[in-house]
């Protein structure tokens, strides 16, 4: 019994007693917290529908492959690689690009956002730039960056840098704006200098916003890198998908799509775990 309980807890199936006894559930967001059973059912149903659908040959495998075919491609590509690179190399190529682009975006975006949140001149100066570039989808710049630096790593990293930059600028600026004046006043009254107020109050206070920004930026970067690889690349998950589509190898395409989804999902879970660890006070004030 205890073991079953523990297993349930790990996969998030244990419900809390209070929630179960609530009578108003429509509109009470805490009352819909336990949906995990349905999630598991939903995944199983999708898998079964896919399996049965392809076994009964409802759909031409050229349009949508069977799970077995995708699985075979997975084993195959894991062993032999695809188009000169192993599967892990393709995944790493994409990850590497977003890590560098994202890191650069944070390195420039956060200080710029801070400066904008702290200085009228800098805010006024950069506002038009930020507000103009923010709504433009990063993909619109693909032709430009290709003209600037070809289809190599640099063009993709530049694209991802731009994708992360505006999000991080706005997140950092919002972070500065979120600090309660009484905290700043308290710090000054406790003898803090401007630099100390920045380091010990404004910076930690803005971490929740910055982290939310990072999660958003990561999502955008992941989508952008795959799309950019579709257009021009020699490696990466997006490239894999594109190359396979030219041979109508839908099993590889679907494998690529599944990998993109799984990695994107994992990144977000990782970021959320990291957030809970680094910013335990988030949402508790």
């Amino acid at each position, binding site marked *: 019994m205890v073991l079953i309980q523990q297993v349930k807890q790990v996969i998030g199936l244990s419900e809390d007693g209070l929630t179960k006894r609530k009578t108003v559930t429509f509109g009470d967001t805490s009352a819909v917290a336990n949906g995990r059973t349905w999630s598991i059912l939903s995944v199983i149903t999708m898998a079964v529908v896919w399996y049965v659908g392809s076994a009964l040959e409802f759909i031409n495998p050229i349009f949508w492959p069977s799970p077995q075919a995708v699985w075979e491609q997975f084993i195959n590509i894991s062993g032999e690689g695809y188009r000169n690179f192993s599967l892990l190399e393709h995944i790493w190529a994409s990850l590497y690009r977003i890590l560098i682009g994202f890191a650069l975006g944070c390195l420039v975006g956060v200080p710029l956002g801070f400066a904008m949140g702290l200085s009228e001149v800098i805010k006024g100066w950069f506002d038009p730039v930020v507000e103009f570039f923010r709504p433009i989808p990063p993909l619109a710049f693909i032709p430009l960056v290709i003209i600037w630096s070809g289809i190599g790593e640099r063009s993709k990293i530049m694209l991802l840098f731009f994708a992360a930059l505006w999000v991080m600028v706005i997140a950092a600026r919002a972070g500065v704006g979120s600090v309660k004046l009484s*905290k700043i006043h308290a710090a000054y009254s*406790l003898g803090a200098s401007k630099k100390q107020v920045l380091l010990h109050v404004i910076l930690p*206070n803005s971490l929740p916003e910055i982290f939310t920004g990072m999660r958003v930026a990561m999502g955008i970067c992941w989508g952008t890198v795959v799309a950019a690889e579709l257009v021009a690349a020699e490696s990466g998950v997006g490239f894999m998908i594109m190359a396979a589509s030219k041979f109508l190898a839908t099993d590889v395409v679907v494998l690529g799509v599944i990998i993109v989804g799984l990695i994107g999902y994992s990144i977000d879970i990782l970021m959320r775990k990291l957030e809970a660890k680094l910013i335990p006070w988030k949402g508790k004030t």
Partner: protein
Amino acid sequence: MSDLVVNNVSMVFDTPSGDQVEALQNVSFSLKQGELLSILGPSGCGKSTLMNIVAGFLAPTAGKVSLASTELHGPGSDRGMVFQQGALFEWLSVAENVGFGPMMKGTPKEQIKKTVTELLQIVGLQDFYDKPVYELSGGMQQRVALARCLANDPDVILMDEPLGALDALTREKMQSLVLKLWKETGKTIILITHSVEEALFLGEKLFVMAPRPGRIKQQYELPFAEAGLVEDPREIKASTEFISKREEILSMIWDMEEEIMGQVEMAGD
């Protein structure tokens, strides 16, 4: 001695619509080291503005504030602040919050630890040393805020509705704590409150302020704070003397509110 002198302070705010708000008009008073002043008044009468000027967060449009004969410009660690709520640093533990001031000054670690341990003992939070502040109740958080302010050993403690967000029972306990700290530390304290009872009980001196323009309308010298150090607070608050003062002040504030309402209605016509 570190006397606090507020001399003819006026404050006029320009609103974006071009109007001017006279938040304070020629406010003057002085406090000797160790005096406890409470300030009462309808909302919008300039209490917070006055406190922000004393704290150094606002520069008055006229007049000046000096502490120990030195004119004040800007905030400093000689004047500690306790706010209503939410001024603690959530990313720091209870101990780190209390030790914030000494840490900013570069005080050695062991000494900070000693001070913090002592202060947490005084405010009754010795068991919460390493706890995150967001896990504490509202009353406990205000204890941390008091300890944090004391850790810096300021001459003057400024409190803007420090107990305003607490429930009635916690509030009474905290009032006694404020009196105890006042007695033990001998600090000058200015406390803003919107509770007449609290103002009477905690104020050795009490100013009732009036709005438009913000000014000190009435000053009282009261015996209750001194008595509260030794006697049962409940008995003091139930004494006829306390009750008659309370009613007197309540009706004065009531009249002020009526007047404000009248002005608003006239302006609306």
